């Protein structure tokens, strides 16, 4: 604090903060280049101004979250149920995020139906069932080992029959370098279209805030197979900052919609990019 101009030391500190927040070297250099450019234009440049510019530059890399109001859980109004398919690698928080989302949509007066299309992982169906009971929304299941596409099909049909507003489909965690498992997602998507031609309306990629640079490859591969339309960033209640989403949002033009900040039903928030950027520069980090 108390520095009056942007010198190498300030930029070095900035680099450290960004890299240790998992922003990644490429994106960090991109940000620093932009700052340097602006600094060279305007010679007298205080730290306070730097903070403002930093905020602008980084938020500029984050895609606009078009879900409407900044703090509410809203989905587009439409005739057929709005279908959200949730994807991501193992253990990031897909099922939990679905439970939390169901809670929010229900609270907003929507009729929600869940589909347990993770038929692979041990007790994944039971896990989502418990969430459906907690939130008190209907769920469609088949038994472990059955075809996930068939579960998705059933869920959409059931949702349509019930005149539901939102359908959320859970899928098994899969590493993005496993070709067969990734192709399975394409199949699930295709089968949904037989019930609702433009479903899924949202493919939500869930990323764990503690993940490092590999998240970029995750985003790339899931986008390739399923055309991801939104992201949720989980586990931000820990010490990890989740900075990798900045580069991802910029590279693939996908907005971050929600953040997970705990394991309870209420622990999901609508993403706010200014708060997110501030959190990168919040407490001093120690390593």
């Amino acid at each position, binding site marked *: 604090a108390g520095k009056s101009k942007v010198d190498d030391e300030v930029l070095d500190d900035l680099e*450290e903060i960004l*890299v*240790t*927040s*998992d922003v*990644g*070297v490429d994106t960090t250099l991109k940000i620093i280049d932009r700052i340097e450019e602006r600094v060279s234009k305007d010679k007298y440049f205080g730290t306070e101004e730097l903070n403002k510019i930093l905020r602008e530059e980084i938020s500029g890399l984050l895609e606009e979250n078009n879900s409407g109001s900044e703090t509410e859980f809203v989905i587009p109004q439409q005739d057929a149920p709005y279908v959200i398919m949730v994807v991501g*690698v*193992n*253990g*990031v*928080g897909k099922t939990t995020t679905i*439970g939390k989302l169901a809670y929010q949509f229900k609270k907003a007066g929507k009729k929600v139906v869940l589909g347990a299309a993770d038929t*692979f*992982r*041990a*007790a*994944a169906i*039971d*896990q989502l*069932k*418990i*969430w459906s009971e*907690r939130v008190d929304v209907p769920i469609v299941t088949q038994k*472990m080992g059955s075809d996930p596409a068939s579960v998705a099909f059933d869920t959409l049909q059931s949702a349509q029959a019930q005149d539901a507003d939102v359908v959320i489909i859970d899928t098994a965690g899969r*590493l*993005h*370098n*496993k070709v067969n498992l990734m192709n399975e997602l394409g199949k699930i998507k295709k089968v949904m279209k037989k019930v609702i031609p433009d479903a899924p309306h949202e493919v939500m990629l869930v990323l*764990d805030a*503690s*993940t*490092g*640079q*590999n*998240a*970029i*490859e995750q985003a790339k591969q899931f986008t390739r197979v399923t055309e991801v339309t939104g992201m949720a960033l989980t*586990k931000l*209640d*820990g*010490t*990890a*900052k989740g900075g*990798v989403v900045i580069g991802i949002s910029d590279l693939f033009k996908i907005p971050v919609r929600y953040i997970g900040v705990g*394991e309870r039903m209420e622990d999901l928030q609508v993403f706010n990019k200014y708060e997110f950027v501030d959190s990168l520069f919040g407490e001093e980090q*120690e*390593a």
Partner: protein
Amino acid sequence: MFENLQDKLERSFKVLKGHGQITEVNVAETMKEVRRSLLDADVNFKIAKDFTNRVKDKALGRDVLNTVSPGQLLVKITHEELTELMGSEHEELDLSGDPAVILMAGLQGSGKTTHSGKLAHFLKNKKGKKPLLVACDVYRPAAIDQLHVVGEQVGTEVYSNKEEKDPVKIAKDAVEYAKQNGFNAVIVDTAGRLAIDEDMMNEISSLKDALNPNETLFVVDAMTGQDAVNTAKEFNQRLDYEGVILTKLDGDTRGGAALSIRAVVQKPIKFIGTGEKMDALTPFHPSRMSDRILGM
């Protein structure tokens, strides 16, 4: 996405040679490439910095600059140093005692329950043990059911008590049950927790105090980024664990967290997890991990 470090260095040395003299300053430039490569692999910022400084000194000591292929030699030195840092030998589990007790700990979703099952499979098939799995995650929806399914997959009995909410009580009862029923190894699955969650960290310390396990294993996702050092350090301060299991290495992560964790807590990585199946558990090899971190 990541260019091989060796190719990168060879290229930058070619450029340097074009400019005539190679100096210490030039080496510093090349070390920037090494550092960047480590950061891309998620090695912690500070550790990458210290590491490259050390490699630089070593390289200058060996007169890298006057060799035919300085890039190759630098990569070789970097590789050697990485491997040494990560511990050269594979370290076995301590399975003494009757029963031997293994306590699993780690962040949410890192792979504790799955790896409890894999360890049971390993102890049964490779070590001739009769293991008992113990369900001490009383929080996560269907955590107990999950362990039962896993237990069934590996043909191992699971001790659980859905009425009991105190994991310490469950674990103690389980050890008693093991003694009375001829189980000579006990694997305790626990809930995921954040290092900054005071109550949950107290819980896992109490579990450790009550069980006095042979092995407390810190289970960590190989895709973890810069936060790996904080978490590994915090868990180590509370638990002084015996070793680490690095999971999900069947992905394409370069796994720099391995180096960061090793460097910050000085505890061996004992196993790596390479899949969701129960036999996807293998001993850790530092040299292969170095290849991976360097993108080779």
